């Protein structure tokens, strides 16, 4: 049984090491900050990195506050009423919907009906809907771990419910809420299918200037280079380089979340 478990570990390590070994030689300052040339066969991937950052920031700006407020409502206000049950049901449903279906939804609602076009705005909103359940569940867990007597003490001293939440619960729950949310954000950074339909373009002559512009993005760039490029075999180093940057970004975010989680747990031992 140990053998089988470590076979999985070995395989993960192999994926990471393979991409590291083949990707590292491509990584250079020019690669990270340059524009693509000859339709991605040479040059850098700067616009794709920037595009992914724009999408991630947009997604966080929408999903993080919404998810946190939802979690506060569910844990502090709603407990077990009908509405809370329906909300929980909706969260479970959302968490199970395939990412490409979110893409279809984003295409139908944001791109076409609201006429945002294929844009940062449409992409971020679509990704935000997708990671909302992750953020709500993580935030809820963190709020629940704040002991009840913290609330009771504050209420007994005459603070209102909101004052109690704002001053005595949120400050302790916030680090946990944020680290849990990083996992969702990592997922948003690596997703390809939803932005394929709502935001991404393979090559843009200029950097986007408003939220209504389409963007290049790392996952989409890798997909095109690996499967659609006429000389896909020859530009393997470019593909590995892009894969490494994306992997570094997403796995890096996950590692930060895991380390922070361990530290937060040690800090607050109730």
């Amino acid at each position, binding site marked *: 049984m140990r053998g089988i478990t470590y076979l999985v570990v070995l395989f993960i390590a192999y994926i990471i090491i393979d991409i590291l070994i083949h990707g590292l030689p491509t990584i250079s300052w020019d690669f990270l900050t340059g524009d693509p040339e000859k339709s991605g066969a040479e040059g850098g991937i700067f616009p794709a990195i920037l595009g992914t950052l724009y999408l991630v920031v947009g997604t966080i700006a929408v999903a993080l506050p919404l998810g946190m407020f939802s979690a506060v409502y569910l844990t502090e206000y709603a407990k077990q009423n009908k509405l809370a049950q329906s*909300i929980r049901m909706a969260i479970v449903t959302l968490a199970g919907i395939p990412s490409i279906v979110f893409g279809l939804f984003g295409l139908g609602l944001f791109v076409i009906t609201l006429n945002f076009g294929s844009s940062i705005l449409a992409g971020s909103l679509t990704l935000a809907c997708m990671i909302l359940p992750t953020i709500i569940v993580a935030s809820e867990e963190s709020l629940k771990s704040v002991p009840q007597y913290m609330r009771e003490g504050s209420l007994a001293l005459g603070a209102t419910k909101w004052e109690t939440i704002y001053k005595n619960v949120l400050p302790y729950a916030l680090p946990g809420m944020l680290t849990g949310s990083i996992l969702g954000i990592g997922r948003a950074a690596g997703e390809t299918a939803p932005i394929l339909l709502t935001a991404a373009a393979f090559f843009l002559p200029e950097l986007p200037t408003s939220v209504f512009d389409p963007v290049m993005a790392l996952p989409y760039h890798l997909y095109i280079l690996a*499967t659609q490029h006429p000389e896909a075999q020859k530009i393997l180093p470019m593909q590995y380089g892009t894969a490494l940057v994306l992997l570094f970004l997403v796995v890096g975010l996950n590692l930060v979340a895991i380390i922070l989680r361990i530290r937060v747990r040690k800090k607050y031992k109730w």
Partner: protein
Amino acid sequence: MNRQRLKAKLIKYFLQSCGSLSIIIVLLIFLFLFKEAIPFIGSPGITELFHNVWNPVSFQKEEFGIVPLITGSIVVTLLAIIIAVPFGIIGAVYISEIASPKEREFLKPFIEILAGIPSVVLGFFGLVVVSPLIKDVFQLNSGLNALTGSVLLALMAIPTIMSISEDAIKSVPSVYKEASLALGASKLETIWKVVVPAALSGIVASVMLGMGRVVGETMAVMMVTGNSPVISFNPFSSVRTMTATIAAEMGEVTIGSNHYMALFWVGIVLMLMTFGLNLISYRVLKKYGLSEK
């Protein structure tokens, strides 16, 4: 005092509307999928979808039969689950029952990383490493087939199966184990004859959740399965899944055309399938108080 009460009310309503947004999003998703898909029923007619040929771009006769796409998804998913289940369950048993605490602290986050690798990166790895390997091992003309896709999808399902099975195994009361050991059963006998059967429903639910994830996975399958829409249950044949069809073709269709609407129908079928799988597994998990994850 009144102002304060008003403020408290406002805050509550604000938080309530944030929370309700999840419900609204789910409703909007259903609404928009159907809104874009419904006109297909009038022309060319809903029965078109049940045919056996998917050939949406043609000068003679466009065909929108989604059967080959559904069978493609099913073949790839089942194969992936067959590969993933032994690894997932044995891994879960090992981590929760046998591994030392130190080992556990290393193994759990490490496998979590696997869950975090973006599917397009896995797909790329499949394209340049796994697919040539499978081509050589089985001496095929092309490594782009259902089996290659399944191997990658199995990798995605393993973390889900492992972590939820582990929770299920951990929640088996320790008196069961102690009783079995006290009766003279060995550790392995106890694990396979007492602990795992007691956790079985949780384990089954974890497999179904993993299946839900696999059915909905897009990029990795699109990159390595070869994408020909044929009805075949041969793991070495090229297949095209529902997800890959939407992702590959949506970029090129005219909005509002028959092809466009047919792709939304594919999305509806896909969503209903994952919805069903998830619903059943959450029911099971909830029954055993494991629904937190």
